[in-house]
Structures are given as C-alpha cells and as structure tokens.
C-alpha cells in the first residue's frame, strides 16, 4: 500500500483546511472528556485523593489505543512514523512547566483541556480557570525576554523510547501495553482500598 499519512505532510489538505480539521478534532476531544466526567473538578481531583482514578485510566487507555493504532497503521504501510511530529525535549522548560501544571491541576481542579470542557458545560470554576490560562499566557509572553533562557534550557532534541532504550519499536509498544494493564490493575486496587465507593460524584 502506498504511504499516505500523516495526511497533512503528504499535502492532502492545506493550511486553512488543517485548521478546520483541528477544530473538528478539538470538538471530539472535548466531547469525550466531558463524557468521561472530566468536566467536573470533583472527578478530576478525586484522583489526587486516590478515591477515583478514572483520569489515569482514561488517559492511559487513550495513549495505548493511539499507540496501537499508529503502530498497526505504520506496519500496514499507511503511516510514515518518521514524519509524525515529535515535541523536542527541553529538560528545563518541561520539568519546571510540568511541576507548575501539576500544582495548578491540584489547586484549580482542572488541566487546560478539561477546564474548557467545564466552560462548555457552564461551570463557573471552569470559566475562572480558563481566564487564568489567558492571564498566564499573556504574562508569560510579556516576561519572555527574561524567561527565554529557561524556555530553551536543556535542549536535547527529539527523543523516542526505542532510541533511548535501544530496543526494537514493537517491544517498547508491548512494554507500554503491559505497563498500562498493570497500572489499571493497580488503580483498581487503590480505588478499592481508598475509595470504598464512598463519595459519589454530584452533577
């Protein structure tokens, strides 16, 4: 079969059409976040109290599903994996940014995507959070001349697990699947231990 994906890289649609595609994917993403119950800060924060690990389970399921899909599409010769965009590693920015995002998640009860899902369902706390994102983004842009060093610190290029671990691609895929299944098992155990079916989520 002829390689034809990523669709954008093969010029199957242009810049403008890509925005429409991105919009449609975004709506789909928001829809499934909301359906999983992630439009509610209660549900999201429950994972930090170890009472409900749905966030972990849904996100890891999404990762495994996408990973298997991409693997099989590449194996079938439809998708050229080497053309898929990878976010380059910047240790400084990503470690600091990750910690900030985690802290914000615990305090605010949302991550950026879920806060927008919350706004869409009319939640006031979601709106406050989304406004915070706007203020934070503008502040960051204003302070960029001072933060630029951190932004680019620890540049390590694009790294993938098969390269770093020097293992065959398929083996890493299997490893991640095992990790996910083990994680789900562990999550169920944690929920039974700490959750006890107690606090039910209120709409």
């Amino acid at each position, binding site marked *: 079969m002829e390689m034809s994906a990523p669709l954008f890289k093969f010029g199957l649609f242009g810049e403008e059409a890509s925005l429409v595609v991105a919009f449609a994917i975004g709506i789909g993403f928001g829809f499934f976040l909301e359906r999983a119950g992630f439009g509610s800060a209660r549900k999201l924060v429950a994972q930090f109290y170890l009472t409900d690990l749905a966030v972990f389970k849904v996100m890891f399921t999404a990762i495994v599903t996408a990973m*298997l899909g991409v693997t099989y599409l590449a*194996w079938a010769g439809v998708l050229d994996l080497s053309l898929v965009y990878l976010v380059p590693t910047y240790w400084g920015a990503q470690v600091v940014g990750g910690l900030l995002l985690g802290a914000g998640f615990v305090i605010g009860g949302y991550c950026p995507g879920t806060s927008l899902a919350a706004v869409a369902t009319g939640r006031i706390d979601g709106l406050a959070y989304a406004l915070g994102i706007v203020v934070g983004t503008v502040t960051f842009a204003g302070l960029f001349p001072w933060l630029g060093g951190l932004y680019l610190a620890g*540049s390590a290029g694009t790294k993938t697990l098969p390269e770093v671990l020097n293992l065959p691609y*398929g083996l890493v895929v*299997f490893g991640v699947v095992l990790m996910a*299944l083990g994680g789900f098992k562990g999550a169920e155990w944690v929920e039974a231990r700490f959750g006890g079916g107690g606090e039910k989520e209120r709409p």
Partner: protein
Amino acid sequence: MTIPGRWSRLSLSQRLARVAFALGLLAVLARTERGRVVALDLKELATIIDREGDHVGAAEVAGWIVSGRADYRLIDLRSEKEYAAYHIPTAENVTLSALPDAGLLANERMVLYSEGGLHAIQAWMLMRAKGHRNVYTLRGGLDQWRDEVLFPTLAPDATGEERGRFERSVAMARFFGGSPRTGDKESTVARVPEMPKIEVSAGTASAAPKAGRKKKEGC
C-alpha cells in the same frame, strides 16, 4: 469451560484489556520502518520541492545564528581547505563524500551549503534517500550568503522598500564581519570583495531568542 464460555463471563473492560494485550504482543513483530532498501516517495519529494520546503534563505540562517539557535546543524560541504579559508560561523565541515557516514541522526535538522548550491542540492537528495527528513539547503549557497548577508548592495535607483530592507541588513552584515555596499550593481559585482576573517564567534553574541521561526508545528 470452553473459551467462548469464559469470554462471555468477562466484563467489557476485561475483554478490552485482553484485546490490548494481544495487539501489544503481536506488535513485537511489527516492522514500522522502511528498512535498508531505499524507497523514495516521489510525490512527497516533489511536493516538498514545489512548496520550497527544501531550502532556507541566507538571511534566515543569519537570523538563526544571531539568536543562538541550537536546534539545527549547519554543514559546510566544501573541502577542508576552502572551509579553513572561510566558512559561515557555527558551520561544521563535512565533505560530500564523508556525508553518508558522518553519523548524523535521522531526526536532526540540518542545513547544507556548498559554494554555489549545486552540491548541497545533490547532498539533500542523498540525505533524503538515507531517510533524513529534516534536511534543508542554503539557497544559493555561499555565493548568496556573500551577496545577501556579508555584502548587501544598495543600487542608486533603489525604491523605498528596497532601502528599508537594506537598512535592516546593514547591522547583520557588520555582525558577520562584512560590509554593506552602495553603488550600481555592475561596478560592485565586478570586484569580488575579500571574505572576512573567520574569528567571528557568533554563537556567544546571542541576544534574546527572536521569533524567527516561520511556523511552529504541534501544539
């Protein structure tokens, strides 16, 4: 108990978990790379060339060097002697024949240049065939670098827009040890100016990163 019998007693998530396990196990055999035999995608290459996605301009590379960008490698394909005489600051010397075995990573962004640009274009093709995707050539090679960055020329009958562009290129030319020239084209082109000495340490003189990148991919 029969296998269908057992299967029907499982919950949906238990079934999905088993499917994921089976797919993951099978994926160990997956061959996701194109292998050693080169299969060039002609349509893809033609698309890239057609959209001018195979080269970068001299002024753009100059901007990258000034801002201290480190997410690409600038590669001088000329001989060691020519490289020693002059090279663009931050460039490393890898001759065309040494290029295939130079240990460059497939995901590294690299900008190739030669004197006039023809060798660089040939090298671009070689690197594409080797599976490198992030390869670009310096448009017009070192000749263009000389005319556009080191010694920009302002014709006497220049329009306002051309003058504006020239003003901006003056600082860039001085930074790289060149000098802007004014006068009509024939007289300046006739005598090729001396290339500057290569003691310019451009990497350290970086200011705050510029918004030089045209388009950012991803999120």
